[in-house]
């Protein structure tokens, strides 16, 4: 089987998910919508890859999930950021800024 490849740099999806969840707990589709909404123009994310990422984050303890009721009384699995997840988001955001800053610097110099 060939894996569906992300058009995102490795690890960026995690960052986006954490960012999306930092505002409020959401279910999977909500996260997907949110990311698509913000980045529809530039990022192509196969929605299917969202779930493995969510499970990975859950295993790492950065998000936790519970079943809840969404609008019009439908059951959905809600994800919410944990304390560790919040710290991880800060760390990754900072790293991302430094990385993009450094890349920009290199590109502008040459």
């Amino acid at each position, binding site marked *: 089987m060939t*894996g*569906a490849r992300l058009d995102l740099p490795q690890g960026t999806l995690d960052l986006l998910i954490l960012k999306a969840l930092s505002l409020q707990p959401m279910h*999977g*589709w909500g996260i997907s919508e949110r990311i698509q909404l913000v980045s529809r123009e530039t990022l192509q994310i196969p929605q299917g*890859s969202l*779930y*493995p990422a969510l499970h990975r984050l859950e295993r790492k*303890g950065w998000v936790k999930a519970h079943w809840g009721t969404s609008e019009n009384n439908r059951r*959905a*699995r809600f994800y919410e950021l944990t304390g560790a997840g919040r710290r991880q988001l800060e760390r990754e955001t900072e790293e991302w800024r430094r990385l993009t800053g450094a890349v920009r610097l290199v590109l502008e110099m040459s």
Partner: protein
Amino acid sequence: MLTELWSQVRYRARALFRRAEMDRELDAELRDHLERETEKYEREGLPPDEAHRRARRAFGRVSHAKETARAARGTTLVDGVARDLRYAVRSWWSRPVFALGVIVILALGIGATSGIFSLVDGILLRPLPYPHSERLVQLKQAYPEIGLDSWALSNQNVAMYRDRVRGWQAFAGFHHGGATLMRDDGRPRRLGVERVTGDFFRVLGVPPLLGRTIGRSDDTPDPARVAVLSYGLWKSEFGGRRSVVGSSIVLDGRTTRVVGVMPEGFDFPRPWAQAYLPLGLDPTRRFGWFITGVGRLAPDATLGEVRRSSRLAMWHWATTMPGLFHGVKPETTRMTTLVTPLRDVLVGDVRRPLEVLQAAVVLILLIAVVNIALLLSNRAAGRAREMALRRALGASGGRVARQLLTESLALALAGGVLGTGLAYLLVHLVVHSPAVSLPRLGDVGVSWRVLGFTLVVSAGAGVAFGLAPAIGLLRGRASASLAGAERGAGGAAGRRFDGALVGVQIALAAVLLIAAGLMLQSFRNLMGTPLGFEPRGATAIALPLPASVYAGHDSLVVRATSEIVDRVRAVPGVSTAAISWNLPLGGRYNTDGFQVEGRPPPAGTRVETQTVQLGVGPGYFRTLGIPLLYGRSFDDRDEAGSVPVTVVDQALASRYWRGAEALGHRIRLTGDTTTWFTIVGVAGSVRDESASVPPRPHAYFAFAQAPSAQPMLTVRTAGKRGTVIAAVRRAVRVVEPAVPVDDVRPLSDWVGSSLDTQRITEVLLLAFALLAALLASVGIYGVMSLYVTDRYREFGVRLAIGAQPRGLLRMVLGQGMGLAVVGVAVGVAGALVATRWLRSILYEVSAADPVVYAVLAGGLLGVAALSVYLPARRAAHSDPLEALRAE
């Protein structure tokens, strides 16, 4: 932080154990996502099926999402292994005989090895339960020139070695004995006691549980009457009451104060020591050698130093005993001290047998491993196609290897569990068998180290041999196997390897069988050795007369014992009865030098030969079944005041006289040079140490002229033993109610227990040898079966074009027997070398006994022939059509 950790643990546990639930959740979650996405497109105005299609496209492959989501849980390896395991169990389930065979072989290998190694570990390797027990030694003396290969110490000796030997931290002496405890209700109980000198407990380094131990202050010729109880006696007789310390008990008719109790598990020098009394060391007592020395080396002292120093002390002492040594120069003799590490003393007799068993189980394990290698590699060969197919369908090499590994491990695990059970069973049987009296058995258990080691070895072997063929499979042969007729993975080279393995197995089995055969022959020789007396039908009863009444009153002793004997003889069912100091194989001997009148010791040596001396009452020879060759036995004429008489045995008489010439000559003993004993009879020789020790010279004395207050009564019964013994008890009680009749044993028990170690070694070794032969024949059968299966088509075709079945039979038989003959030849050669090591425990069997070798080699070849014959017959009956159809 902690709660996070906890939630992670919960997540993992859930991922592992609630997999189905999580899968359902994932399904629901993905379905929900797709529904919402579809609704979104519907809201945008698309028709439902178009909306659904768009949603699916945006999502990507659902199955992939699920797969990766599961993988993200981080448990795929475990899941995979579980799947493999299920597959492995299913696959073995479909070939139960094969799987069971492997499991049983492994279990036997693991069980036998772990069991025996646990015994070895518990008995030989484990330190004694005393602090720094490696510094504990036993001290005895030896003067081989006069037949004293092991010579106990006198009072004077103990004091001398204690004071003059450099290198002790402490030194003490002890000797076994008995004492009669009179209970409050008037019933006596015989106790096994140890009489010890002051530093005994300091040597061992064990403090008392309660009160104090025997100390230096008790080292006087007339010590205070005190006793230290063993834990067992304290519990059984005194209910474990602490108040017993300081209280008085009646021991041997005298009031004795209990001063201490030893802790549980303290059982030196023998497990049935029930109380410790002061020996009453009297350094001025120069005669009477009955004490064993035990010492603790100082931290900086060596065994060699103590040996040298104690030998010098002994030599010096010899010069102070001119009466004993007649001016012998000790330096010119082999007179020496025997300083032996205490552990070697305790396990000395069983060390070699245990080592032999240990070697045997290592061979068994080897054979088992080789066998499993053969079975698994043959099986892998048979599955070459399956594996090739899996590869072709896209399974990675690692995946296939993992499958094979899991299958081997599943078998190893099952075998390991069963083998562990077997090890426990074996140890349990040996430890609890009434027929076994090994030292230090009390707390032998299955050792986890040993069990772990064998498990690892067997599992490792299973894994290695399960994987080896896989590597061959993965390397290129896959396509060939898939394409064509070749079924054996290894082809000719593989068969040669298998053949070599079979040869090795047969050789190992031959070594074991021959060793077991030699042991068996040796044991039969021992059992067949005439002891010189007849233990069957005779019962030995200890009659400890109370010392408070009888000590120093020989006439009382004689009167009481002869009355008891008379009453016992009158009991219906008793054919004869007699009194004596002790009995053959009883382990207590008095020896002394003797001199024949008119025959000075051989010139130059000036030493007197030792003889066992034994006081026996009238009827002793008849009761024991010892033949009287010449002259007469003792009778009522031989009283305290009459002419001192003796009956010597053949072993003594034949040194000086022929036949009846001995009668009328006189001998005297070193211990009493004034009394000459007239020889009135010559009796047959007896082996009274053990069946394997040649008879020593004996001089018997009339019990009435040399009484003992602690005699043995031997009763030969014609009727039912139980009722007769009860009647004997009553008779004894009438004459002397204070005598405890506790120690009643058939004389044959004494004989039996002296052969225990040989018997258990022999039984186990025989079992292992049969196991080895069985495994080896399974091995050769397996290999020849595979060989026939491989060439089944060829045989069929041969038959079709006119080959004779008989010819095929002969060919296959020839192939298999070729292996067997080479294996047996190598095994016999190996046995010739290996059994040298058995020599010291073989009795009157040469380690190269040709009969044993021939019989067992022939037997093994016969078994091999049978194992080869079955596949050979199949070859001879190959059906060409069936063979072709099998393609």
